[in-house]
């Protein structure tokens, strides 16, 4: 049982990087960016291709991150320069990336067995099971969160936040909103691809399908984190979102352990997210059911 939880936490940490990326688009920029479905697989594909070709796994991971940045750039340009709605821009890049990912890998799946991954040095030191990825995951998630905290406190970061909040105001204050949207999408997808690269190395394979449904997982993590741990300050929110990804993985591990068919997982996730997203509607309605009689005239 402990093994299962540890494994879930390790995987959750790797997915937390992706959730932080989704947070940037969904919350900061107020855009539902579907590019992530493509860029998470792109991260895995690029890392797997180069690692299996003998490249240093850290350099391969960095290349994967750079590839993700380009994915975000593509969506950003489609949206801001060609005025295609954000949702559709993301879908277009996502679809395009499916073919690109197949090109990168040359096939639909690359196994990563008996190759050096970013976890290998720790495994060589005698750590086993989920511990190597736990350690790597913690270090990277903390680093990413610290960098994001700093970045969104800077002048450029503030300009991105203002753009997501009120484009009219942002432009009136001399902010180039198009560039800020592009920058936000670029950073977000870079993180998502980094996450994909680390996940592929953790699960010892990259698959062209590994992105399917990932936006929903990202949103689920985000919302679970926000609801459970709060969003009072930005620092708090970053921690909440990261923890949300871990909690999500633990929940999934537990329901699988309890006997849920793995094929039903995506349905389970979608329903969970639908319920979480509709909370603002459900809460007053439920409260109304209980209080309708004795709180009239409130």
């Amino acid at each position, binding site marked *: 049982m402990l093994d299962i939880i540890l494994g879930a936490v390790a995987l959750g940490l790797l997915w937390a990087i992706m959730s932080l990326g989704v947070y940037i688009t969904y919350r900061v920029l107020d855009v539902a960016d579907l590019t992530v479905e493509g860029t998470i697989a792109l991260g895995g594909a690029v890392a797997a291709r180069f690692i299996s070709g003998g490249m240093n796994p850290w350099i391969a991971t960095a290349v994967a991150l750079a590839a993700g940045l380009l994915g975000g750039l593509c969506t950003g340009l489609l949206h801001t320069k060609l005025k295609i709605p954000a949702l559709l821009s993301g879908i277009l890049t996502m679809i395009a990336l499916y073919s690109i990912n197949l090109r990168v890998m040359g096939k639909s799946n690359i196994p990563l067995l008996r190759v050096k991954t970013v976890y290998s040095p720790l495994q060589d030191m005698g750590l086993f099971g989920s511990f190597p990825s736990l350690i790597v995951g913690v270090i990277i998630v903390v680093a990413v969160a610290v960098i994001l905290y700093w970045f969104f406190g800077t*002048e450029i970061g*503030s300009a991105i*936040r203002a753009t997501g909040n009120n484009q009219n105001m942002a432009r009136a204050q*001399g902010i*180039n909103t198009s560039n800020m949207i592009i920058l936000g999408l670029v950073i977000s997808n870079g993180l998502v691809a980094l996450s994909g690269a680390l996940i592929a190395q953790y699960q010892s394979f990259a698959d062209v399908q590994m992105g399917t449904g990932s936006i929903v997982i990202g949103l689920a993590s985000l919302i679970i984190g926000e609801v459970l741990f709060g969003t009072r300050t930005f620092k708090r929110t970053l921690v909440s979102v990261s923890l949300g990804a871990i909690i999500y993985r633990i929940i999934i591990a537990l329901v699988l352990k309890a006997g849920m068919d793995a094929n039903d997982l995506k349905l389970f996730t979608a329903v969970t997210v639908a319920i979480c997203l509709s909370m603002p509607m459900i809460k007053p309605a439920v409260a109304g059911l209980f209080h309708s009689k004795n709180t009239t005239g409130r």
Partner: protein
Amino acid sequence: MLDINQVYKTFNAGTINEKKALTGLDIHLQEGDFVQVIGGNGAGKSTMLNCLAGMFPVDQGTIQIDGQDVTRLPEFKRAKLIGRVFQDPMMGTAANMNIEENLALALRRGEKRTLRWGVTNKERERYHELLKTLGLGLEDRMTNKVGLLSGGQRQALTLLMATLQKPRILLLDEHTAALDPQTAAKVLELSEKIIADNHLTAMMVTHNMKDAIVHGNRLVMMQDGHIILDIAGEEKKHLTVETLLEKFSQISGSELANDRMLLS
């Protein structure tokens, strides 16, 4: 210092919704002018300010500020020269950001944004002093989200933001219309004070004829997308609502049929 020369703007050209918003608009402002803009609904008042601010391109004509042709300059670049307060109190501020962050964004209007901190301690002191002058108690709520403020407080803050980095022109687009009468009067008084203290050149669109007569040194009336009346100096000082209505019917050959203007 501001020259709008023969500007034309048509919305939805070629469709049944075609609207000729500006038809040969010509206006020239002197340094320090505080121009009141009045006119019926659809006269082109807001379109004029929006064209000036660069929210959409004009079809014809040129706009020059200090001799510099800004006709094709994108909105965010023109923001360096122009401060704006909108009719909708929600529009001028970022609701999810706090008061000092909003001010800090405004302080950097027209400057290159870098990776330095978005708000510095030195600025905070200055914001504290400036907010005090509003007399709304906002100086003690600098880390509150702007979304928590009332409409009047938000307009006062927007006014401060629009003038924090001294603009060449300040545009007030019915900025008190969404407020209750008392708050509206207060915000208007504040606008007047800020414009006078900073010697700003400003244009203010209003539906309230009395406000238009009392404030500013110049009054223009718009109809059908251009200016039909332009009164300044001594003549403006002795203006009354009655003479204004009379002038209007003389020029346009019709009664000024606009309840919103007559009643206010």
